[in-house]
């Protein structure tokens, strides 16, 4: 019989053993790895990491590098356009599908399937479709519009929008699904009440439904933003960063610096900047979402 109190450390022993992978991951990989990278971003690490402090040199050099500045600019353009368009498209599609339509499952399945594909596959398909020699441009010219030009992947000015087209195609299904779940989660009595009150549908969406879907919007926002910051494979597959360095992005900059240019310090500084960007979105969200949850018991 348990007449002596079991040792606190070994109480619930199996659960603690089961949690070891989580604890190791959380402490060593997530906290440890992140701290390590931040620390080494203040060093002059080149081919190999070494603790030779250079203060903010890596960051100064980073912000003096044209490739990084273009990467940031691209991320901003891509990110902002993606964010706006993916929400608009995703929400409108969800609202249309929510009209008790026929073939709902088929339509939903078709809109979402790109999300199951890898970015590499997505990038390569759109590289092919946007190929000016054979793709859309060629088709339209074939229809008789000889001067039509649509070659985003070969025009440095608009190349990032070529990526955007592919990104939207791949990612809008996800937003649509989440928005649809949000719409379905709204009490149908709200619609009945709005109808009795004679409020037009668009107004009901704008003034009643969308505000009610705030939590869905916020979680979707966080998912989309973290996805945007991580964008890498799509670029590599679709343009390889080109033409020239027209479609470089921070994630690719980090990879190139670390594993191609043997300039670890730059890679660490650049990835720390990426972390900062994500933190700017995630931390306010976390405070908003979980800040008051302590009282909820």
């Amino acid at each position, binding site marked *: *019989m*348990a*007449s*002596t*109190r*079991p040792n606190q450390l070994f109480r619930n022993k199996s659960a603690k053993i089961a949690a070891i992978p989580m604890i190791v991951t959380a402490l060593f990989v997530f906290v440890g790895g992140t701290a390590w990278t931040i620390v080494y971003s203040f060093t002059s690490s080149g081919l190999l990491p070494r603790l030779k402090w250079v203060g903010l040199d890596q960051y100064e050099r980073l912000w003096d590098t044209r490739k990084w500045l273009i990467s940031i600019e691209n991320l901003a353009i891509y990110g902002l356009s993606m964010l706006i368009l993916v929400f608009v498209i995703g929400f409108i599609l969800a609202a249309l599908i929510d009209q008790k339509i026929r073939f709902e499952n088929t339509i939903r399945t078709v809109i979402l399937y790109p999300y199951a594909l890898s970015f590499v596959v997505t990038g390569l398909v759109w590289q092919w479709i946007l190929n000016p020699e054979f793709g859309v441009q060629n088709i339209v010219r074939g229809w008789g519009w000889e001067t039509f030009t649509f070659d985003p992947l070969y025009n440095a000015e608009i190349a990032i929008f070529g990526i955007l087209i592919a990104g939207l195609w791949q990612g809008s299904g996800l937003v649509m699904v989440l928005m649809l779940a949000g719409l379905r989660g709204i009490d149908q009595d709200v619609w009945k009440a709005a109808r009795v009150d004679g409020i037009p549908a668009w107004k009901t969406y704008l003034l009643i439904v969308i505000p009610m879907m705030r939590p869905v919007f916020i979680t979707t926002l966080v998912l989309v933003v973290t996805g945007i910051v991580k964008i890498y494979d799509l670029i590599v597959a679709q343009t390889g960063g080109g033409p020239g360095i027209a479609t470089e992005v921070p994630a690719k900059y980090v990879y190139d610096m670390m594993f191609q240019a043997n300039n670890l310090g730059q890679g660490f500084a650049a990835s720390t900047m990426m972390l900062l960007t994500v933190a700017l979105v995630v931390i306010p969200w976390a405070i908003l979402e979980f800040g008051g949850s302590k009282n909820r018991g």
Partner: protein
Amino acid sequence: MTNSVEIKNLDLQFGAVKVLQDLNLDIGKGEFLVLLGSSGCGKSTLLNCIAGLLDVSGGQIHINGTNVTWAEPSERGIGMVFQSYALYPQMTVEGNLSFGLKNAKLPKSEIESRVKRASEILQIEPLLKRKPAALSGGQRQRVAIGRALVRDVDVFLFDEPLSNLDAKLRADLRVEIKRLHHSLQNTMIYVTHDQIEAMTLADRIAIMRGGQIMQLGSPDEIYGRPVNKYVADFIGSPSMNFLEGKIKDGAFHVGDLAIPLADYAFADGAPNNLDATIGIRPEHVVTGELVGNAAYQVDVEVSLIEPTGSDTLVDCTVAGNHFRVRMDGQSRVSVGQKLRIGINPSMASLFDLKSELRL
């Protein structure tokens, strides 16, 4: 050793919140004890502590003379029945009944005979090969009781076992649990928020509030001599009428009424000049021909009538307070009608206005 379960100075806190405070409770062998209270009073928590499903912060729990404070639930010699039945959905009824016995590594023949006996007692033999999803609510709860039964233990713990059933089934199973207790004669600790269940089943009731036991006693005592205003208000439906006034010169003064207290059994003699509350149960108010026998009579005007079939509840005003009277369902009364009611202070309860304790 006549006590089956002894709880000594039990404390339980979650963080800074004290859920159970210095709680003492002895439960005799074969006793049916009901823990009664509104939600959040700590009754289920106490039961979970007895079962070993919650670790206590202080104090001791003894079952059958053994200190089980730190023992695993399965080592405590208890069986438990839950509100949601908690049957393992992927196992058959037989599997559900034998799961604990298999864990205890009992011989196969022993498991079979115990399952057979329990299913005979509960009349669930035809269901043994079915999955819980194919059973009705009442059948599921029988299986859940069976799961406690096969453990062959002295102490049964019930955590609101009937709350998920509809009213009629609840009444049927209530009777069955009582019958089971009569035939098995083991200790049962039963948590509920339903006072009818408590009154009908219990040998003793423990009324809980804020992690403490307010009153522990037989259903009669709890109903007839509540120790404080909370218990008085909690027990009884429709609930007790309360009038606030003053005890002075052997009478209770409220408004211009003076109810004589000569028949009232004070615990420590009659106080004088004390602010107090008198509690009168609606069913103890006398009407009709018997009014003349009552110790005190007053005329009221009927303001509302609620017929329930067997009884009729009549609302009126006594000394400016809302007051309810229970009359026979056959009585003919109408709103606005003048009515003479009688009050017998011997059946009433008096509480100190400040401390709310029984006088």
